[in-house]
């Protein structure tokens, strides 16, 4: 392999690897301060994580995280900060749960119907922020924060009462929420897909079928961005709105399209839970929208990167359980590790980005001084290393 390519490969791997190492080391220090043995803690985490059942847990948790991450990432690609994924998914969740319980369709159709409802609601609600931005100049960060409150304290609080399932369930405490969708119309688990490769999944763990939807969303996102004209428009408008506008891309249109797409994906975030339980409970898993921001940033808005980030976060969440049960460490350590990983990863990426930019500038300058440089002839190591 030529030297330049090797250097590029090393650079590409340097950021995530060094970030992970630093994060592991820093967390070890925190663990030591807290009076825990980091080696035991890490071994417990690894051992636990290597079990098939744990992996199912990780994937189940990673699925909504990934969807939330992609939703946020779509916004970021267009330079939009969609803090509203939280509100969008909760709204889509409750409406899809309610409307899903109103009809009875064959399973496949029913699943499709529920997902489409969720995506439409998520997209439409996100669109409000987009329209406010392009027509009224309202900063989307602020409008989506306000709209989150409108959903969480307002619409969902209202509809959970309006759409409450029959009273006898609530009387003993416990399950309260919208009318459940019959299990036969929900997305089945995909344990068999996994079991094909390994052994039977134990402990009643069910790998969510929404994982497939998440993968499809990721592929769709990737293809959209890199292979279509619309994706090019979106990316260029996000990178430089002015240049892109001069190039025929209306920034306003792109803003609305991007935030609606973001909302469409956000609408799916609550679906793993709905497909599992069949109803919207009075206390759905919340905060995924905010975690999605962190996941998107850690994954650098790249479909694969976001997936890795979602799995890392999910792994840490799942590890918090084993650390407590074995007594290796307290749960808080996991939150601190998340923060440390984000910060170190971002710093590592920034450092690598600068090195790469310098390399490129050097290569360009070399071409300037010697115009005869053929395109495939790499600069020598002396030119590259500064």
């Amino acid at each position: 392999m030529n030297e330049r390519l090797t250097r590029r490969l090393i650079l590409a791997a340097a950021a995530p690897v060094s970030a992970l190492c630093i994060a592991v080391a820093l967390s070890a220090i925190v663990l030591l301060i807290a009076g825990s043995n980091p080696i035991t803690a890490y071994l417990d985490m690894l051992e636990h994580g290597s079990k098939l059942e744990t992996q199912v847990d990780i994937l189940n948790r990673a699925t909504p995280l990934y969807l939330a991450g992609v939703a946020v990432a779509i916004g970021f690609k267009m330079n939009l900060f969609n803090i509203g994924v939280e509100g969008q998914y909760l709204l889509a969740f409750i409406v899809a749960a309610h409307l899903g319980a109103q009809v009875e369709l064959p399973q496949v159709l029913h699943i499709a119907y529920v997902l489409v409802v969720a995506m439409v609601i998520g997209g439409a609600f996100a669109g409000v922020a987009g329209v406010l931005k392009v027509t009224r100049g309202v900063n989307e960060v602020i409008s989506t924060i306000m709209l989150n409150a409108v959903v969480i304290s307002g619409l969902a609080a209202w509809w959970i009462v309006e759409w409450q399932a029959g009273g006898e369930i609530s009387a003993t405490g416990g399950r309260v929420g919208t009318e459940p969708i019959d299990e036969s119309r929900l997305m089945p688990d995909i344990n068999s897909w996994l079991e094909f490769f390994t052994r039977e999944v134990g402990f009643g763990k069910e790998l969510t079928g929404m994982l497939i939807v998440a993968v499809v969303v990721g592929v769709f996102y990737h293809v959209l961005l890199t292979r279509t004209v619309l994706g090019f428009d979106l990316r260029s408008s996000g990178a430089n709105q002015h240049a892109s506008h001069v190039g025929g891309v209306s920034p306003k249109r792109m803003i609305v399209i991007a935030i609606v797409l973001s909302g469409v994906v956000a609408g799916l975030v609550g679906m793993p839970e709905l497909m599992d339980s069949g109803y919207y409970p009075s206390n759905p898993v919340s905060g995924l929208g905010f975690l999605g921001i962190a996941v998107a940033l850690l994954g650098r808005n790249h479909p694969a990167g976001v997936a890795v980030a979602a799995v890392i976060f999910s792994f840490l969440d799942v590890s918090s359980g084993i650390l407590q049960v074995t007594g290796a460490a307290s749960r808080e350590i996991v939150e601190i590790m998340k923060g440390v990983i984000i910060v170190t990863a971002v710093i590592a990426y920034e450092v690598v980005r600068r090195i790469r930019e310098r390399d490129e500038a050097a290569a360009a300058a070399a071409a300037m001084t010697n115009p005869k440089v053929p395109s495939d002839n790499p600069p020598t190591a002396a030119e590259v290393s500064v």
Partner: protein
Amino acid sequence: MLSMLSMLNKQPTWLRWMIYAAIGVLVLTVVQGFDDTERLTAVTSSQAMLRWAVPILLAGLGGMFCERAGIINIGLEGMLVLGTWFGAWGAVTYGGWAGLLIGMAGGALGGLIHAVATVTFGIDQIISGVAINVTAPGLARFLSSEVFINIEGGSITQSPRTPGQGKFTFPFLAGGDLFGCDTPDILGWFTRKDWFFVSDLTGMARGLVAQLSLATMLAFALVPFSAWLIWRTRFGLRLRICGEHPVGGETQGINIYLYKYIAVIISGALAGLGGSFIASPELSGIYLEGQTNGRGFIALAAVIIGNWRPGGIMGAALLFGYPFGVGLRDLDGSASHALLLVNTIALGAVIAWALNRRRRVDATLAAVLGLGAALWYFLSSTVPDWWISILPYVIVLVVLIFFSQRLRMPQAAGIAYRKGES
């Protein structure tokens, strides 16, 4: 009408705003009559407004300093959290005032991290802020598990009760002591007369000067102080150049990094102060996990609505604090119902403003929203609880819908700056 307006415009700014405020109280007075409530103009309502405005005001001022220096601070929420923890710990250990100071130090620590990440390393400001928001609650909990657990009355999620900073009642205006002697309570006297409007006005005013916590006074004193600092001092000018044109500042010999660092740390310290206020007896009286309730994000909105100016941010904080405080105290929903009519009238004012400036779209939009509020008002006798909860957010959103285009962000905010790379 128009001549009256133009007369108003000739008055000095402070007087104009006093007049606007009086008109506002008049509207509240009239409207609350229909709903048979006195909450809208009660002494306690203006007190609640202040209480609920303070953390948003402080964090908002923090956000302003940061963004004026060119750094966006999404991490305000995390810094508030640090402020609640350190504020409570300081107050419990060393007393109320020390609590405020230590809370500031805790927030400043968050600011320092943000500064290192964004100024020294040039990391994306949003990312750094998000990382702080993710980490701060974990850190607070970790610290609780190390510290509060060992103090009586504390636990991993909460601190023992925090002491406060004392209260002050203005002499004469509200009958506070002056050198140990009682003074007449002038505003109180008017208020007790129950005269239409006059008593309402004095009542609300009295709420602003009676039994005022010293911490609240400090917070509001920071508004003119910040304005003075930003607009009138060398420090302020240099700070502003960091947000407007850092390279220009560099060429004039300004150490941009230094001012950015100072600004981001001030930002954290103010958010931390806001956090310790939340944990002080004025609001919670303890540190409790999760008690910031997203106020950091509201503060971000306040920075924008306030157009990156201290006075504007105070206005935004009050605009949020009033419906929030009144909504909480509105046990039967009548005040919130009355607020619907207030909103209608306010939207009417927006229509007049828009027509005056020949902004037809704005006028139509305001008319639609106003009509909706009016219809709701007349077709119902009370509003649901969830509506009371979201009213402050809706008001903020509506204000943004009409006035966003008039706002102006510091030009270089959000853009990474590196010395010598121009």
